[in-house]
């Protein structure tokens, strides 16, 4: 009962956030960008007199001459049907542009998230409660967190691609081309999550129940994996929502450094060319991903911590 209400509430909130993001993009599109028709006509600079007709046609075709509120209504209507409109520059539907480029980006982000989490898990479980290993690795993790990822990317490229030639320098060719971008994206995630997870494990191991578990004859490993880890996951889950958000931003940089195709490249090109429907599309996709991930993480938190389940927020 409480759970159903929780889900309904979260779904409502999610729709609200997406609507907010869409509205803000729309306002940005129409108030801040000058004359969209000129952008579509090309260049956005001076247009000769004979082109006035072209502009008029564009205005007619995109409905730019109608009152804003009508345009807003139509925009929302299209959005509800999953239609993000036409790109100003690519002469393609925005949805097509995004869907085509989504694959490589998802592969990159998902792989990096899994790798980041996995490394953090190994580091935290392996070193928690062992003072020496702990101080060594937490320094390392702090380094991961504080180094800009483009710099890490360039370093990795220099060593493993240029010097050793183990991995391709750029491109979207198979898993080999993903290894370095994955690592580059994953390291800051590993750093953050490992620090938080180790702290959580440490706290759990100091709880009285840890003594109880050992007094039952359990091994230290069992205590860590079956008991303490669940406690450590709670702060990690909370932080993961934020971490995965930064991952979306990180993708743009990494795709540039490694010259990979993907949403990041699409976004960069669209922003440079003021192709606003595409920018709106990318913003909305990012919003949806963010909402879905955070809702999923909150649901997962409730699974991990039974104490939260009876509370309707």
């Amino acid at each position, binding site marked *: 009962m409480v759970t159903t209400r929780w889900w309904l509430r979260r779904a409502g909130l999610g729709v609200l956030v997406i609507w907010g993001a869409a509205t803000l993009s729309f306002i940005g599109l129409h108030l801040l960008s000058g004359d969209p028709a000129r952008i579509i006509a090309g260049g956005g600079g001076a247009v000769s007199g004979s082109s006035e007709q072209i502009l008029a046609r564009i205005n007619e075709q995109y409905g730019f001459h109608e009152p804003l509120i009508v345009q807003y209504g139509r925009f929302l209507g299209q959005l509800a049907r999953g239609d993000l409109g036409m790109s100003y520059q690519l002469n393609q539907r925005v949805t097509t542009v995004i869907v085509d480029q989504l694959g490589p980006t998802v592969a990159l982000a998902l792989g990096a998230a899994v790798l980041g989490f996995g490394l953090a898990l190994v580091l935290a479980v392996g070193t928690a409660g062992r003072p020496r290993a702990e101080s060594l690795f937490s320094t390392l993790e702090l380094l991961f967190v504080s180094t800009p990822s483009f710099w890490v990317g360039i370093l990795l490229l220099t060593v493993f691609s240029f010097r050793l030639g183990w991995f391709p320098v750029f491109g979207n060719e198979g898993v080999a081309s993903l290894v370095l971008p994955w690592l580059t994206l994953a390291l800051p995630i590993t750093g953050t999550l490992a620090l938080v997870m180790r702290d959580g494990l440490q706290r759990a191991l100091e709880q009285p129940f840890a003594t*109880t578990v050992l*007094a*039952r*004859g*359990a091994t230290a490993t069992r205590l860590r994996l079956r008991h303490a880890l669940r406690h450590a996951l709670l702060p990690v889950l909370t932080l993961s929502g934020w971490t995965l958000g930064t991952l979306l931003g990180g993708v743009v940089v990494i795709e540039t450094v490694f010259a990979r195709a993907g949403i990041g490249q699409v976004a960069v090109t669209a922003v440079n060319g003021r192709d606003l429907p595409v920018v709106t599309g990318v913003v909305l996709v990012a919003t949806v991903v963010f909402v879905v991930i955070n809702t999923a993480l909150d649901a997962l938190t409730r699974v991990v911590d039974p104490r939260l389940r009876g509370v309707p927020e």
Partner: protein
Amino acid sequence: MTPPDALLSVRDLRVRFTTRHGPVDAVRGVSLAVEAGRCLAVVGESGSGKSVTARALIGLAGSNATVDATTMTFEGRSLLSLGERRWRRLRGARIGFVLQDALTSLDPLRRIEDEVAEPLDVHADLGRRERAERVRSLLGDVGIPDPAQRARQYPHELSGGLRQRALIASAIAAGPSLVVADEPTTALDVTIQAQVLDLLADMRDAGTAVLLISHDLTVVARMADHVAVMYAGLVVEEGPAAQVLHEPVHPYTRALLAAAPTLDPRGPAPTQIARLAPPTTGPGCPYRSRCALADARCHGELPALRATGDGPSLARCWHADAAEPLPTPAPRTVGTTTSGRRVVLEVDGVSKRFRVPGGGRRRAVDGVSFSLRAGEALGLVGESGSGKSTIAQIALGMLGPDDGRVLLDGASWSELREPDRRPHRSRIQLIQQDPLSSFDPRFTVERIIGEGLGQPSRRGAAAHRSRVVELLHRVGLDATILDRRGPQLSGGQRQRVAIARALGPEPEILVCDEPVSALDVSIQAQILDLFDTLRRDLGVALLFISHDLGVINRMCERVLVMKDGAIVEEGPVGDVLHTPRHAYTRELLAAVSADPATGRTPVRTGPTSVPEGRPT
């Protein structure tokens, strides 16, 4: 003293911790023996080494501990130089361990069934169905009603008593021959405490050996066959329970017994722990700094644990044979009549309801009326969830009542708007159970106490400080702790600082919400003495909330007994405690009547399978 058939036998156990400040000897040569079907109790205040002893016996003294003994055998095998793998085979399987406060001793994120079955998962390879059946029968054995349903729940969904039972079920899951229980009832209400002790007694009667660790002599009196009293890592007295509790020889044991608040109709016993000092290090008797009998020999040489006069008891004291009476301070005078004085706090028909999760409202306080006179100590007793603390909040004006009203010194109080109330807040102050969490950890003692005195002007800074020092003196502390912070103080010092802070604004009323529940008996006695002194010297009135009838008996003239938000009985303490009219008061009394002076009580507080309500 080791009987030949002892299940567990330890001789000259020593535990040393390596810390940053050098080695600390927590246990300095303790010998113990537990037989099957018997209960040995180890008693002592915090820091006496009793918990470390218990942990050393299951090989969990900690990674920075060095454990050493001349012999340490369990079930005929030596535990000395046992490898970690062999230890694990004993833990949970042959030796069960029950810790204090099951809310934190059970993993809060796992179901009761998984917690109870963990020793089975580790030691026995049971099938799914067999495991579930075993868990159900274990939960039934420890008196948990509706075990199948409870097994699927989480620790926070069970009441304190049920949780403690579940923890015991887990400790005995694999059928150990010895159960070590470290303060198993400390966090529980008295009636629940009695039930849990009865459960442990049943296990003992069924042939399990029980090693009970406790600071609470009432608990020990109810359960133990044999008692060892620890002080500063040493056993200072040991012997059959009846002997140690009735005819204590060591001054420390005598002081402990005297300090325990009792229901003795003759009124409170005078405190015998005259001085509070940490155990003395170096050669000589560690108790000498607190002992009224200490002489040159006590300073020079540590007495051996030796037989005393006529009994089978052993004591570690040069003065054991002399059995000199301890110098006793003059008995406290309670019952100075306050009936004619003016009423400072009047609570009139107050009710309060709270919303509960899942809809609905619960009555926390239901039509409560009482009045508190100047200089009076009024006790408010009841179990957790009875509404005591809500009354405190309402009296303080922190919470508005739904119905009824509170008058402070005859003027309206609960009905005032907060800005009108604030100037008068200094007249009623609060002292809480856990002073540490009521201190800002970054504040020094000077700032903690000074906060209640207002901001000093630059010129008034010196006067401000001298007022803080004066308050410290008033509560028996001195200026040396001005710059310390909460965590650097001992439990007793913290509560004294909290009292000094409450006294700062010169209140007429102190609301004390379980002010001594978290303290050892000896410290408890001193804090209670302090309250007495303050009441006598300053004429401050006390609304004294406690679940402990002994403490109420020691402190108060009148008492209110609360149950489910309503006052079920009230009257002078002597009348209520000795001729209780309400069944609930009788139940509370029965649960604590095993006081150390009278030995084990024959009264059982209902069957062990009494279903308990969910925590409120």
